């Protein structure tokens, strides 16, 4: 582990310790029942961190084998991260069937589109492709998450403070990784030294901070899951009947505003 700076190892150890604390809080407070996928995500991170520590000890930090194993093992927590976010959004939007139906489509489309764009030009070499894929994943994740939050905000849906902390933490961490990867790539392209230690410190330091916020937030017991509200009879029919009429009226209002200055403005 000679190539891994001492303070990076400390931050690494700290991150494992805080992750264990988050797991402990989740189990101690019983919140793991409400957030099973999020709990599995945190557990998978602990397992990955321990496994990587052993691999780096065995093969060295900069060996090709270690790099390949490290990056390929990232797939599991990344997948679980997406599932954890979906779980939290599902809990928030549980009483709103229609809006949840819209939200998961927004999440999927935003993620797919941004990730595809981010992967363009990633075929040069393996390390370039891995770095771009990682950055693309986090960028797509951040955009999709913010798009869903905008949707939730648009419909004035209340978000429990614990869920706010979890969602905010995920997004903030993803934004940091995007910036760290971009700065690292820019510095390496311009031959301005090795940013690996800086990258490790920045991303791990942020992750530790996010975990600390989660640990504090999760001390609060999460509320009982919201009941799936029974939609009033005919609500769907009224929606499909009224929604086009409302839009038609809004469109006509816009046209009137457009004709505001013209003397021949038409009557509706």
């Amino acid at each position, binding site marked *: 582990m000679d190539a891994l700076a001492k303070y990076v190892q400390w931050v690494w150890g700290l991150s494992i310790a805080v992750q264990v604390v988050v797991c402990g809080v989740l189990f101690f407070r019983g919140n793991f029942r409400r957030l099973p996928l999020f709990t599995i995500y945190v557990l998978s991170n602990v397992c990955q961190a321990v496994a990587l520590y052993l691999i780096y000890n065995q093969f060295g930090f900069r060996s090709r084998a270690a790099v390949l194993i490290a990056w390929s093992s990232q797939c599991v927590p990344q997948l679980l991260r997406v599932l954890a976010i979906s779980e939290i959004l599902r809990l928030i939007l549980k009483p709103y069937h229609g809006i949840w*139906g819209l939200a998961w489509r927004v999440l999927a489309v935003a993620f797919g589109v941004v990730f595809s764009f981010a992967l363009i030009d990633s075929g040069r070499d393996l390390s370039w492709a891995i770095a771009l894929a990682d950055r693309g994943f986090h960028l797509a994740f951040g955009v999709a998450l913010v798009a869903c939050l905008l949707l939730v905000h648009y419909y*004035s849906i209340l978000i429990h403070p614990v869920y706010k902390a979890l969602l905010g933490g995920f997004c903030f961490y993803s*934004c940091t990784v995007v910036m760290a990867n971009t700065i690292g790539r820019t510095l390496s392209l311009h031959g301005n030294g090795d940013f690996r230690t800086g990258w490790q410190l920045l991303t791990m330091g942020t992750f530790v901070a996010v975990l600390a916020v989660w640990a504090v937030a999760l001390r609060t017991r999460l509320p009982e899951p919201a009941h799936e509200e029974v939609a009033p009879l005919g609500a769907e029919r009224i929606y499909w009947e009224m929604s086009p009429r409302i839009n038609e*009226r*809004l469109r006509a209002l816009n046209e009137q505003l457009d004709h505001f200055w013209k003397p021949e403005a038409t009557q509706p």
Partner: protein
Amino acid sequence: MSLTLIVLGATVALLLVLLVWTLSDTRQQQGSHAISALKEGGRAHVKFLPQMRRALEIGDGEFLARTRVRGLRERVGRERRRVALSYLSGLRQDFEELIHISRAIAALSPEIGAAQEIDRLRLKVIFLCRYRIIWISLRAGLAPLPQISDLSNLLSGFSVRLEEAMKELGERAAMVAEMASSSDRRRIHHA
């Protein structure tokens, strides 16, 4: 500095601003207020349409000009402009209320159409931009006043059908809420 760094830096900054904005919002919950919003109904400013039409008559201006009282026409013009501005802002309130009710209907519906919702969002953005331009023009004395009344016609015809739908949905939603609360009470008694 590379272009990628600038573009991604700006994107990340925007994402963080939006994140803070959406998560720091303290507005009240839509769902639980959807039913009450439907019950309350609309407070339509369009009911002041006849008074507005009277106030904005062109003939009055001509009459005032004939009286030859110094400054009277300008003063009345200013007053009318002020009334027109408050009326315009009232129309905006009506518009916002329509949007609010449409969200409440969407929140209660088990299925909503993405195209409808996106279209409404787009229309809202366009309306707000145009409204702001007209508001500034009125303030600056550039807009012709009488045409404001056309806007209110659009709202008034629509309100009748909307009120019927709101009433129907509000009654049914209240019935469901009552059923849910009575079943909860039964559970408590059994426990």
